Every structure is written in structure tokens, then in C-alpha cells.
């Protein structure tokens, strides 16, 4: 893949990653199925999952400094993850605004339902990121994906990733003053390509 890639992920393509969910619920894997199923149903009903990706050159002007396209960031952890890859895929994937509104409504109604639904939504977001990553890599060997906020990668770099993936126009993703993404269930990432 070169240039841009935009794709929708159908609700049917997403399956709920149980381990991911269990961790967020602070519960064991085989825990209350009925509660989870109900929350899962509510989330699935308002999913609108899509991703946008782009392939960019990488440069390393100094130790612990990475140039992603025309933008630079200082992060030892990112440097270790990417160096010496010469290119990377950047992508943004989102579950859409409908999920945010549904979670907000639940937060008014019941903290327990909100807690479970929020965990389910976050788990789905991770699943969506996995699917997006597979589609983008298309079999190319790559580094593990790395997101702003991991390790010492500055959260502020989020804005540059969104610009480069054209995330506003393609996915309607917006960034708040305190660097919170909207829709909230959105993941952005860098995936270094092994030559």
C-alpha cells in the first residue's frame, strides 16, 4: 500500500477480544456472559468503524529523535521501536461518534452498565486496530505498532499523525484542547516497515 488507504470495517468483521475485555473489567475471562452480551449488543448497534492510513518516510536526525514524514518527535521508546526502518505506515481507526453518544447516555442511567459498555467499546477499538493493521501491512513484515502515549512518546504528536492520515476529512476525528481524541474510541498508530 502506498498513498492513502481508506476502508470501512463492517460490524460483522469485529469480534470481541476476551482477554482485552477481561483486563479492562478487572475480572476473569469466564465472567458474567449475560452482562457482557448485553453491552456488546448495544455497542454493535451503533458502530461505524473505519480507518485511514498512509505510508511515510522515516528519518533519524539524532539519537532518540524520529522524523515521521516532515514532522519530528523526541522519544527514546519510539526510536527503539522504529530504528532503522526507512518507512512506516500511519493509521487512525475509529468506532465513530454514535458509540460516544450511547456511552454518555449509559453513564447517566447506570454506572455499572456504563463501566461494562465502555470496556467493551475499548476492547472493540483494539480489535479494530488489529484488523486495520493486518489490512494495511498486507503481509509485509513490520514492527509492533506504537501509539502516542506509549512509553515516552509525547501525546502531543497525536496532532501530526492526524494531519498526515487526513483523519478529520476521512474519519471525522477531532482533537480537543487537552489532546483527547473525539470520537473517544479512536486509536492512532505508527507501524515501522522492515526493509
Amino acid at each position, binding site marked *: 500500500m502506498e498513498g492513502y488507504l481508506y476502508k470501512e470495517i463492517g460490524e460483522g468483521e469485529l469480534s470481541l477480544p476476551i482477554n482485552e475485555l477481561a483486563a479492562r473489567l478487572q475480572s476473569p475471562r469466564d465472567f458474567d456472559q449475560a452482562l457482557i452480551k448485553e453491552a456488546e449488543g448495544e455497542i454493535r448497534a451503533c458502530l461505524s468503524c473505519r480507518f485511514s492510513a498512509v505510508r511515510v518516510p522515516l528519518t533519524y536526525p539524532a539519537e532518540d529523535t524520529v522524523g515521521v514524514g516532515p514532522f519530528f518527535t523526541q522519544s527514546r521508546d519510539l526510536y527503539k521501536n522504529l530504528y532503522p526502518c526507512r518507512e512506516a505506515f500511519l493509521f487512525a481507526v475509529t468506532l465513530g461518534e454514535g458509540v460516544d453518544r450511547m456511552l454518555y447516555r449509559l*453513564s447517566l442511567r447506570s454506572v455499572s452498565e*456504563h463501566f461494562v459498555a465502555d470496556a467493551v467499546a475499548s476492547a472493540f477499538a483494539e480489535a479494530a486496530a488489529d484488523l486495520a493493521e493486518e489490512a494495511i501491512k498486507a503481509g509485509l513484515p513490520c514492527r509492533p505498532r506504537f501509539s502516542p502515549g506509549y512509553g515516552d512518546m509525547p501525546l502531543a504528536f497525536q496532532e501530526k499523525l492526524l494531519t498526515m492520515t487526513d483523519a*478529520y476529512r476521512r474519519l471525522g476525528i477531532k482533537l480537543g484542547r487537552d489532546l483527547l481524541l473525539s470520537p473517544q474510541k479512536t486509536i492512532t498508530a505508527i507501524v515501522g516497515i522492515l526493509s
Partner: protein
Amino acid sequence: MKKDIRKELKSRRLYFDGGFGTMVERLSGASLSPPELLNLCDPATVRTIHEAYLAAGSRILTANTFGINRDKYENYEELISAAISLAKQAAKDCPDAYIAYDMGPTGRLLSPLGDLLFEEAVSLFSANARAAAAAGADLILIETMNDAYETKAAVVGAKEGCDLPIFVTNAYDQSGRLMSGADPLAMITLLEGLSVDAIGMNCSFGPDLMLSLLPQFCDHCSLPIIVSPNAGLPTVRGGKTVYTVDPDEFSRLMVRIAEGGATILGGCCGTTPEYIRKTVEGTKDLPYALPAKKKSTRISSYTHALTVGDRPLLIGERINPTGKPRLKEALRREDFAYITLEGLAQEEMGADILDVNVGLPGFCEESMMTRAIFELQAATDLPLQLDSADPKALASAMRLYNGKPLVNSVSGKKESLDAVLPAVKKYGGVVIALTMDEGGIPESAEGRVAIAERIVSYAKRYGLRKADFIIDPLCLSVCSDDRSAAVTIEALRLLRKKGFYTSLGVSNISFGLPARDKINAAFFTLALEAGLDAAIMNPHSLPMKDAYYAYCALRGRDSGCSRYIAYATNEAGAPQAASPTDIGAPLSLAEAVEKGLAKAADEAARKRLSEGALPLSLIEGELIPALSAVGRRFEEKTLYLPQLLKSAEAASAAFAVIKEGIPQRKGEEERGMILATVKGDIHDIGKNIVRVMLESYGFTVYDLGRDVSPEGVAEAVEKTGCRLVGLSALMTTTVPAMEKTVGLLHRMTPPVTVCVGGAVLTPSYAKEIGADGYGADAMETVRFAEAYYGKKE
């Protein structure tokens, strides 16, 4: 002198230009830096692009200003001036070309889901508009927004910053809606209400998608229709980004779009002068006409519109403090969650629209109303009816409302019309007009109709027409005047004959009588038969809904009786989800808490109280032990957090019932705690868990919500008198705000005790910022609160 573009459009088709980014790439190579900077550092390229589009046949140039606003650029005025000047220079030999100021989105999401306040957004946009007008733009083009609210802020801002014509195109996604959910009819309703000058679509993937959405515009839009598609989607060919739709394919589709009724044509991402040239060639000789003026009465929320007259509409009346002590209490405590839940409950019971009345003596209605609208809009997408006797409150609510609202109400009194109608014209709205005036309520139906006609006639001076009104002929209680039902029904009939739409506060008819629902339901049927278009009623009232759904089915206003069937099978029988309490004997209070079943706990508590159990013995003997047992199992890890929360919610439900039976002992204060997520942070699950746990142990919680400033917390302390505060923060960036809040609270007298918590905090950091306590989890916070009150006794 160029003609005003609105006049020009009457006689000929105009063409926008095409994409800018693709052209920049062609001329000066690919770049990921913002195009607006070129206005200062590479003006020649900008001018060349404009000239190329003019040569291709564009006669509306969009200045290179899409991403500019005061937040992003301190020198925004300079950039805007440069951009417009470059467009004018390029057009110097084309006196019939128009220069549009291109106003794109801020890239931020508006509150409440995001952090950009509506008024902040309006201010950004009006600053742009002012600069645009000063620089000599001919019109404002608001484009590419995928959110109805931001679009409204942009239109309001543009109108407040200048007097230029305003065109608006939005970006629809593949499902035919904006990202935030609005369909074309909702946007048309909103934008026509705001009196913009042309409406349409841009960006959004490709001409084929727009062709499929075009009929919705042609069917409903009375303004010129703009269509500016992308050249399809970007993809790869030979290492370069190419768009999937080539100029020939593009222009073929644009011909169909023009034949389909579009007025102004242009191009967006991926298009170049070649696309425009071929489009002009293909469409310049096609017959041209502006869309016909449609007559319809519509309101909208941020997702959908409702057309009055399609079928009778139900307006839920429950958000109104009159006769509702619990709602009054909620308003006094600013517990807007209560208000919102009432709204959601009415939605579930079938309301099409929610009436919002929050007038309380001694309280500022304007701020109550705007807050209520704000909160309701976050949770529900039902259209709202703004209900107030205070014109200022109405105007502020209309301004903030995300859509085109119902406005309740005006009367025939000149003073009422002069106070309310200007805001309706400015922001758009459909007004409920009560048929009463300085002389009171006419006794005859004809008298009421006459007032309706006078209101509509008077409203012309404000630019409003008959279709902007719904007439309420009022119904007085039948027990004070036994002719009152007949007069109202006759008035409805006469109004319908004269082409008016009507509404009624149906339950007024039975005021003072016993078993009100019986009268209400019968009267409702009579009124519907006489032509009632909208009813203000209680959606929880089954007799009224029975009458409504049956009437609609009988009168052919319910295709295939499908709504009736859905209603009847839902109410009558199949329970939504078989709850365990339906099977076998009802659960005891302790069992309901342990199983986490809130409804069962509520029922068990009521049953025990009705059997004579003492409230305190229920709490201390059953409720608290059950909760403690659950807490122990949680600590032993035989029960997990979601279950703990459900149990806590069940206990809270029982507690709420039991508390009503406890008289407040003299001298004993309630045990309260103020909770807030600090400024800059919108994560609130942790705080909400603490709230639920505290409430389950009988604490009164004042939940200030999220993103609360230090001053906001201090104010709450003053207002409530509660001197125990819990602060939560999830993000490292907001810990300084927490420190500031702690400091401010500690400087108050008497001093406030602060407990802090949240994923980002540690006991040592809590000490560092001066907190009095640290809650690693909800239970620790509860224990801290218990200890605080224990010490005081």
C-alpha cells in the same frame, strides 16, 4: 459593479473551483504543511491556481483560507487579507467572478461531547467573517463540516461578523449522513431556518454518492443547491496518489447531477481545472432553474427532522416543574442528570419531541434553560420544544439549540410577539401561537381563529410566514365550563380548514376532575379527529397512548398498522428482557442487593416498608450487611468490579426508597461529599464508581461532573455547605489543575477536606499536592468519608 451573487444565480449557473491541494502538489511538490501559509510565502502559486480555475470556467473562486482561524494563527487577518487579495488579483480580468471566503471546520468537537464551547466557536467564525468582509470577499462559503452544531456556530458567527451572502455545504459519509448523524433533511431544516443563501454537499467521497443524495435536496430544499464532489477516493498508481474518478467520468456524473436539479457545481479533493472545464462543457447548455419553493413546517434535532402534518406528533410534557416536587428539587440542586433521565424515559415511552420548561421562581431561568438544553442535547437526539414565558431565556435557548426548535410560545399580545419573534427569525424555529390576547381567551372558536390570523399577519413584519406557526387554540377545563371541549374542537376544525397546523395541551381539559386519563384519552381522540397535529401530553399515560396509536391506525396514518402493532405487543406483554424477578417468588432485599438487581431491590424495600419494617433497621440490619458481604467477596476476588457496581446500584435504589421514610433527626446533618473530575479531564468512570459506592452507603453525593474548574468546586462548597470533597483525574496533564483546586479549597474558611484519586495519582503525589487523603479505589474513598464523619461525631 458586480451583481449580488444571489441575484446572479437567478439567471445563470455558476461554477465553483476545484481542489487546491492536488494543484499545489503539481506546481510545487507534495507537502504536508498547511496550504494557507502559501498566501504569504508562495503567493505566485496561489494566484496561478486561481487563474487556472478561472480559465477552466469557474466563476466563484474559493480563497485559500480553509484552515484559518484565530486560534491557529495570530496573524489570521493578515493571512485572510493576503488570500482574498490574491484571488482578486487573479480575477482582475474577470469582472463577473466572485470571491468566496472559504470557512472550513476548526478540527475540534463542540461541547458537550468535545471541549469547544459553542460561543467560542461562534467567536472564531465571526472573527474570520469580519476579516473576510474587510478584505473584500463577495460571500462566505462554509464547507466540509461534518457536524450540525459546528455548522450552526459557523453560520451564526458569519452572520454576526458580516452581511455577506452565506453558502453552506456539508460533508456526508457513505451512509448519507454527517459524522454526527444528521441526514440532509435535518441540515436543510436547520440551514433554511438560519436563512442562509445556498445549501449543498462537498467532499464526501465522490459524485456517485452525491448523485444518490441529490433527490433529498431537490425534494425538500427551497434554496439553490451546491454540489462539489471529490474525484472519488485516493489510491495508488505507480507510487503516486491518484483519485479513482477521472475528469471524463466526473463530468458525466456532474451532467446527471445538473439534470437532477443541482444549481451550483464545483469540485473538491482530487479535482483540477480539467475536471471543472469538462464539467462546464457538459452542463453549460443544460436547462437551468432554481429549486422550487417548498412549503412545509419542519423542526429538527441534530440528527433528523420532523415534518408537521405527516402524522400527529407527541410532545412529552414531563420536564416541567409545575406540580412536580422532585423535579423542582432536582433543579434547585442543579441535578441535570435527573432532568435528562426524565427526557430519556419519555423518549422510550414514545415521545417524538420533548418540551423543556425549567422556570423556577428565584432562579435565573435563562441559565437553567440553556443548561437543560445543553444536557438534553448530549443524551438524546429528539427535537426539543423550548418552553418559557421569559423571552430572554427563549432567545438564549434558541441560539444554543442544535437544530431548528419548536418555540413555546407567543400569544396575540403585541408585547409577546415583539419580544419573541425576532429571535425566531434569527435562529429559525416553529412557533406555538396561543389564541389569546390583551382581551383574554375568546369564548368562541371563531374568536380564537381570528387571533391566529392576526398573529400570522403581524408576524410578516419579522419576515415570518404562516408555515412558521402552529396554533394552540387552548383548552380550558371542562369542569369550569362545560362548553370548553366543544369550542376547542370547533376551533381545531376551523383552523385546519384555513390551512393552519395545530397543537394542544391535551390534559388541561380534565383539570379538577378525578381519573383524569379517562377524559384525556377521549378528548385526545376527538381532537385528533378534528385535525390536531401535535399534542403536549404525558408519554407515560397508557390510556392516552392507546387512544393515539389506535387513532392513527384507524385513520390510515400508520402504514400497515406497524406502529400500532409495535406499541401493542410491547406494552401488552412480551417483557423486554425476562428479569429473574419474574420467575418464582420476589427476592428479599438482601438477595436483590447481592444479585445486583436494582428494580428488585426497589420493590423489596417498598414491600418491607409497607409491611411495617422500620427504615433504620432495614438499613442497618439488612442493607448494609448485604453490601458489606458483597464488598468482602470483592476483596476476596470471588466477585468482580462490574458485579460490585450492580450491587451498589441496587443498594442505592433501595436506599432512595428507604430514605424517604426517615425524618431528618434534629442536629444531625446529612453526610455529604462533593465529587468532581478536575479541569481538563473528561474521564469520569472512576468518579462515577465512587459516587455509586458512596450513595449505596447512604452518603449524599454532589456530583459536579467532569472538567470542573477550581473555582467551580469552591462555588459548590459555598452553595451546598458540604466541606468534604473528592477529586479525580486520569490524565497526567490535568494533575496541575488538581493541585490548584486543592490549594484553593484549603484556603477557604472553614477549611475543606480533600481526598484525591485516579489512575495517574499515587499516595506520595497526593501528599505532594497537599491532599488530605488518597483513595486508591472507591472503597478506600468510602472509608475516608466514613472516617471524616466519624471523627466529627
